């Protein structure tokens, strides 16, 4: 076969997407459609004294204008938007109505909705809605929330939403710090980031002519979750809702929420009997759904005289934003288990406080909790290396789980069990590819010569938690859903294979990867495989795509369903051969009787036999169609070592990333080409946090850089040509040995880049650098070490 597991097959999706044949949400229209224009709060925190919609209602093409009050009067949108992860029993969860009624809680909070016959008309009319705000004191930063003097919600006595501890062995922590030869501590700020996928969010709800049924198109990562949540929130029966995710242009977590636009469009479409749609504008995106990160990490590490870490103690203050969205409070917890990183650290103490602010809610963004944890432990390892007086390479080598040798089923201090790992080969290979020894010599030369451009070398060995997840583990964390994934495999009468995927692509390449798995398992051409997905009418069961779970859960379900089809087909083949099933062998798609290979039948030929059912074994049901809901026994833990090399212009403070090496291990690779694409993009996204991106707010809760002019998403011009390699340590959590790679690059790169900058600036006494490492920050750090001489 031309492509199986492990082949660098070109993506089947690409010809369509690259020639403009992909149908995105904005390409889909319905007769009579109405556009929503959102009137969003321009205040961080304010009482809504009155809303005058009269002028907007008179604008050409305007159908109607809705406020929180008029929606309530019509019995619409009265239920708050859902939070599916109440992390503690006493978590505070203020009602988050799709349209605010009396108080706006952040810039971007919806206060009224215009329906008009064009997008431009809706925008023009939205501008004519006059909202009389009475400003309230706003919480414009996480620090202000923690100070707890000004309240983000006027009816609450504290901004604190929850306190969540993970302290498996408190005495152990105390003992480790009491007996430590070395301790280091640091405070790291994980700035807010805007997901910024290439395609903005958008949706359209189309009611059935007779009413009662809604077809909902959405640029979403999670059509199945949306279907359940729309039903639960609007009261429209689940069986009357069909959700379709058309071609989706990226998400990075930014499209996994249940947002006001979904509830509003479904409710209004159902109420009015007219299609209702919305497309986000780019500046609107900063306040319309959620942002990522937003944490302050306080971390301490204890080590013995040799630099062997004995305990890590973390307190996290996490910025929830104004409201709890779908998994807002759970994001920091996803990181909690990773604060011991790849190291054999016997003790972990972790606490997290969640805080409300008057800023856009936070939620999942590529890595969701894990890049933050990886950053903190990998930064503190470099700090400990300095404290102990050894190199970053050496301190890591001394602390790796199993001494860097291969292991399976490691009991981490966090109480999780790491499926498998083998850290030293990736470490050695990355240092070799980056030519770190040569770089150190060049670095010394430049330092001695006092050159303006100094070199910095940074590394990071990360581990992450992928494949969300075992349903029981999620239940233990009070998560509001399971972590299984569903798949159906059908051998059609013509011999073609139809796969129904519960996990939903938004750019990853599911159609290609699933075709390869089927080709590998069933011995068919990957082009004979059709993958159905992203439409709840075609794929009724699924839990969608986030947390690097598609392959490690959904792909495994596909493979298991294929195995079941092969098993049944084998019975048909044995029947045709008049042989015992145990004597029938299956190889490269063909069944034959052991010892008589000349007599064989290809599995694709059996599709018609199963369909016609003229001559099946006694009692066998017709058709070859099998389903699997796979619930993995454990998460998967990919890992890898990254090396970043930066050139720092000490005259201007400018930092250029001049080389980047990543050696990742995501277990068995189905398609290395797709793996490399994921790693490339992930690395850039993490480097972007280190060097470029931050959602800036002023003290009143106004975002000051909501456009791509000021919110600096890097381009290819800012990135070096990334060098990649990989090792393969199969997962023990699933039969394919796969782990997941969607977030890996992001989880490794921010720490590697900042470690490199701190390394380059170490002669200036610089030991830390806040993200993003702007030229001004770098210049100030250098300048401060010069005693303030500019």
């Amino acid at each position, binding site marked *: 076969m031309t492509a199986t597991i492990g082949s660098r097959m070109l993506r089947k999706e690409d010809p369509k997407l690259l020639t403009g044949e992909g149908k995105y949400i904005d390409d889909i229209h319905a007769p009579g459609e109405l556009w929503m224009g959102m009137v969003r709060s321009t205040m961080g925190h304010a009482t809504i004294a009155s809303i005058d919609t009269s002028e907007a209602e008179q604008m050409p093409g305007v159908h109607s204008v809705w406020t929180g009050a008029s929606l309530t009067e019509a019995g619409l949108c009265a239920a708050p938007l859902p939070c599916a992860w109440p992390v503690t029993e006493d978590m505070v969860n203020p009602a988050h109505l799709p349209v605010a009624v009396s108080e706006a809680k952040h810039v971007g909070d919806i206060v009224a909705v215009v329906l008009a016959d064009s*997008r*431009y008309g809706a925008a023009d009319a939205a501008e004519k809605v006059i909202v009389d705000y009475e400003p309230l004191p706003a919480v414009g930063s996480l620090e202000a929330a923690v100070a707890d003097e000004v309240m983000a919600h006027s009816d609450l006595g504290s901004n604190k939403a929850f306190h969540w501890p993970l302290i498996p062995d408190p005495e152990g922590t105390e003992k480790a710090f009491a007996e430590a030869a070395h301790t280091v501590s640091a405070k790291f700020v994980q700035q807010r980031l805007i997901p910024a996928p290439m395609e903005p969010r958008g949706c359209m709800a189309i009611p059935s002519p007779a009413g009662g049924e809604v077809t909902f198109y959405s640029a979403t990562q999670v059509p199945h979750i949306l279907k359940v949540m729309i039903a639960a929130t609007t009261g429209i029966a689940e069986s009357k809702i069909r959700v379709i995710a058309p071609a989706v242009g990226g998400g990075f977590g930014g499209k996994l929420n249940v947002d006001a636009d979904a509830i509003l469009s479904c409710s209004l479409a159902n109420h009015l009997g007219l299609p209702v749609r919305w497309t986000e*504008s780019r500046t609107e995106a900063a306040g319309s759904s959620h942002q990522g990160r937003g944490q302050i990490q306080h971390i301490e590490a204890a080590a013995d005289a040799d630099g062997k870490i004995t305990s890590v103690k973390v307190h996290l203050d996490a910025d929830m934003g104004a409201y709890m969205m779908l998994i807002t409070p759970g994001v920091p917890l996803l990181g909690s288990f990773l604060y011991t990183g790849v190291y054999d650290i016997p003790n972990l103490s972790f606490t997290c406080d969640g805080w409300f602010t008057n800023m856009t809610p936070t939620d999942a963004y590529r890595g969701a909790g894990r890049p933050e944890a990886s950053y903190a432990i990998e930064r503190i390892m470099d700090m400990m290396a300095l404290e102990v007086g050894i190199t970053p390479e050496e301190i890591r080598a001394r602390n790796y789980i199993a001494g860097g040798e291969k292991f399976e089923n490691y009991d981490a201090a966090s109480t999780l069990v790491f499926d498998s790992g083998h850290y030293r080969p990736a470490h050695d290979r990355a240092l070799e590819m980056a030519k770190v020894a040569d770089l150190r010599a060049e670095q010394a030369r430049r330092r001695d010569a006092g050159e303006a451009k100094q070199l910095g070398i940074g590394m990071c060995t990360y581990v992450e938690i992928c494949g969300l997840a075992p349903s029981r583990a999620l239940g233990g964390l009070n998560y509001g859903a399971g972590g299984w994934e569903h798949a159906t495999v059908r051998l059609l009468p013509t011999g073609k294979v139809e796969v129904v995927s519960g996990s939903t692509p938004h750019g990853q390449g599911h159609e290609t990867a699933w075709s390869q798995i089927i080709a590998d398992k069933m011995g068919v051409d990957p082009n004979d495989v059709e993958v159905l997905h992203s439409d709840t009418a075609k794929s009724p069961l699924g839990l969608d795509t986030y947390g690097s779970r598609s392959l490690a859960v959904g792909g495994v379900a596909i493979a298991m369903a294929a195995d079941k089809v092969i098993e049944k087909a084998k019975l048909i083949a044995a029947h045709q051969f008049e042989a015992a099933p145990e004597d029938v062998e299956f190889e490269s798609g063909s069944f034959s009787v052991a010892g008589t290979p000349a007599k064989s039948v290809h599995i694709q030929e059996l599709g018609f036999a199963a369909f016609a059912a003229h001559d099946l074994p006694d009692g066998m049901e017709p058709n070859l169609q099998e389903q699997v809901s796979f619930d993995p026994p454990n998460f998967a833990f990919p890992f890898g070592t990254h090396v970043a090399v930066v050139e720092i212009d000490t*005259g*201007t403070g400018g930092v250029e990333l001049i080389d980047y090496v990543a050696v990742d291990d995501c277990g068995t690779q189905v398609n290395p080409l797709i793996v490399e694409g994921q790693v490339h993009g992930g690395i850039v996204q993490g480097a972007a946090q280190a060097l470029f991106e931050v959602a800036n707010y002023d003290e009143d809760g106004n975002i*000051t850089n909501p456009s791509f002019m000021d919110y600096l998403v890097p*381009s290819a*011009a800012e990135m070096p040509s990334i060098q990649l390699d990989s090792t393969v340590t199969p997962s023990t959590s699933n039969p394919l040995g796969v782990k997941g790679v969607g977030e890996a690059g992001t989880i490794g790169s921010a720490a590697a880049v900042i470690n490199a900058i701190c390394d380059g600036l170490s002669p200036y006494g610089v030991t830390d650098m806040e993200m993003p490492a702007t030229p001004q920050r770098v210049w100030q750090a250098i300048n401060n070490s010069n005693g303030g001489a*500019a």
Partner: protein
Amino acid sequence: MIPAAFDYTVAESADHAIQLLGEYGDEAKLLAGGHSLIPMMKYRLATPTQLIDVGRLDDLSYIRRDNGHIAIGAMTKHAQLETSDVLAADCPMLQHVAALVGDPSVRHRGTLGGTLAHSDPASDLPAAVLALGGTIVAKGPNGQREIASSEFFTGYFESVLAEDEMIVEVKVPAGTAGWNYQKFNRRAQDWAIVGVAVADGGAGISLVNMGSTPIRATAAEEALAGGASIADAAALAAQDTDPPEDLNADGEYRAHLARVLTQRALEAANG
């Protein structure tokens, strides 16, 4: 990101555009490449009700030698400057600076006249024209006038152009003597946080994004003319400037950048 309603007219000639400007007054804006105006309209920071498209006036698109200087039509695109043999031979700095503006799509739409008329102190080409001692030719209902670039810019997005005038040509002196342009930014496509253009070995030094207009670093120019070292002259680069403060840089840092970049530009220009 959705502009307010506006009407749109394609000008048939410069005279037609000027006539329309006279008719519509301050409700009108000329549209050349549109890469500054359209984003401002999308943010509704600019809400002209009449757009007069002059970007199609091909007779204002040329680069030619003319009596010791180079004459450039106002609607000449940055990409044309970037690839011009005339500039390569006789004014390489302008060619070099044009190649650093924005990204390729910006350079294939943006025009020299448009960027000068927009008068953004953070733009590259106005400062280059200023360092070169260029001249701006403006046309109005009463005919043409020539304006020295040193007299042209008056404030943030403001110039001496009258409401019913448009730029038709830009003249820069031919010259290949020691030149350099230092552009400091965070992403290749961005405006300069600070930029420094040096022409004629340092006789012309201009600063990008160090005030409300592109400005000459007069103190540095005079020190250099008086025999000061490059380092001593560069130390004066930020004198009498009032740099803006934004998310990228405060005033102190911008002043530092102006000094460092001026030193580098002068060293490169005289290297």
